[in-house]
């Protein structure tokens, strides 16, 4: 098993602690002029996303987590798992609800996602930054109002709700920024 020494600690490094994978968020080297050195680290649990602080004795080693990011295509959800496929090898992966998290409301079959794998199991799903989705439900549009000025909620085909301009109608296809949960444009204007 690969190991990281505390002198290799830096933001982004993936380690295993108590059986769980963590990413180092911040590492602070602490040492009194005449005493023992420590690394005080903020680490984020990649399964739960919870950030905790831990101390390591300087010079100690910790097991490296075999974590990598891959681009996978979303296939379908079966109610329990979300299924993804590696587009070149056709290898399939199933992600739990915990791994998919908030990404679920953006996932449309055939869209490509950034998936974090730990020992081959999806830990975290990042939806594409921009998705194109159809409006399934919104109040009737205000004809002629094409210059903004007011918004209304619209439900998209994946269940996500975003604020859209008043002129948007049901059935229209929109470009949405998933990082901000924000309407960008009509898809054909994007």
């Amino acid at each position: 098993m690969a190991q990281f020494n505390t002198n290799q600690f830096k933001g982004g490094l993936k380690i295993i602690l108590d059986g769980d994978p963590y990413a180092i968020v911040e590492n602070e080297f602490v040492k009194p002029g005449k005493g023992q050195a420590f690394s005080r680290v903020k680490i984020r649990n990649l399964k739960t996303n919870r950030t905790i602080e831990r101390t390591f004795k300087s010079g100690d080693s910790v097991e490296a987590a075999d974590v990598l990011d891959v681009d996978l295509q979303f296939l379908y959800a079966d109610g329990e798992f979300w299924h993804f496929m590696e587009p070149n090898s056709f290898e399939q992966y199933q992600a739990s609800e915990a791994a998919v998290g908030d990404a679920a409301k953006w996932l449309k079959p055939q869209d490509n996602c950034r998936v974090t794998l730990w020992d081959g199991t999806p830990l975290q799903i990042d939806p594409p930054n921009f998705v194109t989705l159809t409006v399934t439900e919104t109040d009737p549009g205000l004809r002629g109002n094409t210059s903004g000025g007011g918004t209304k909620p619209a439900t998209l085909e994946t269940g996500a709700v975003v604020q859209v301009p008043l002129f948007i109608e049901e059935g229209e296809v929109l470009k949405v920024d998933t990082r901000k949960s924000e309407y960008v444009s009509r898809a054909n204007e994007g």
Partner: protein
Amino acid sequence: MAPAAVDDWRPGADRATLIWRAQLLAALRRFMAERSRVEVDTPVISSAAPAERALDCLTVVDGGYLVPSPEHALKRLLAAGHGSLYQLGHVFRAGEIGRWHNPEFTMLEWYREHADLAAMLVETDELLQAVGVPTASAPQRYREAFGKITGLDPLIATLEELAAYATTTGIAPVNHADDEHNRMFWLDLIMSLAVQPTLGLEAPVMITHFPIDDAVLIASDPDDERLGLRFECYWQGVELANGAVELRDAQVAEQRMQREFAIKQLRGVQPPPIDTRLLSALAAGLPPCAGVALGVDRLLALLVGASNLDQVLPFAWPRR
């Protein structure tokens, strides 16, 4: 803090900071000159290295060590009759990299003949004030400062009590099996992570009378043999200076160096040779004196409101 590779030819400090830096170095020299302390520049490469367990030196391929402080050379000068003196220059410590650590840093180290701990507390305060630091608050003993935060007496608390405190406050190291019985380990941990961040938040504070257990060249307290005549100055939770009344007994010095040498050997590394020239100087007679070492880069960072050393050094370690 790591700069983008393509941009790392640029300095970390801006022009205003480097001008402040130049003025700070001049002000420190002026303070010493006003007190008739002679500036010396002793070798940066030494054939021996300090024995302290917590100091690791960078080695020179052609032989020798980059000094982690000019202490040994300055004491040899003192023993040779050169009187009160100081050095302002670069020192080196292997493996110390972080927000407040750079393996190569600037240190002011000065020694004053016939000074006691109280005199050095006053002088350190005066020096800091001379460069723009607020007047220090009343000195506290290590025992009191430690007790105020932890409710524990660091001199009599059991190992179990120290470990329990560290565990319940979430600062105990992930692995500490090797150090269960190492008292200084727990004291250093609690001091660094629980006590120090609370020290000197407004004005600097001097913490005095540290446990003697890991001291090498520091005089012990004649009133309490468990303590060393040593102080640390903290400002904004950062350790800024370390001072002591100096040990003059060559035999005690050698015993302590051998103890530290053995501790380093137990870790599986070949320690640098013991500095026999320093021992000879002590045997010849070190005048009664006290000394202080001050981290100049940290002082500048705290003065200018920087959040790390990269912002006050032309080229910190990642840009070297």
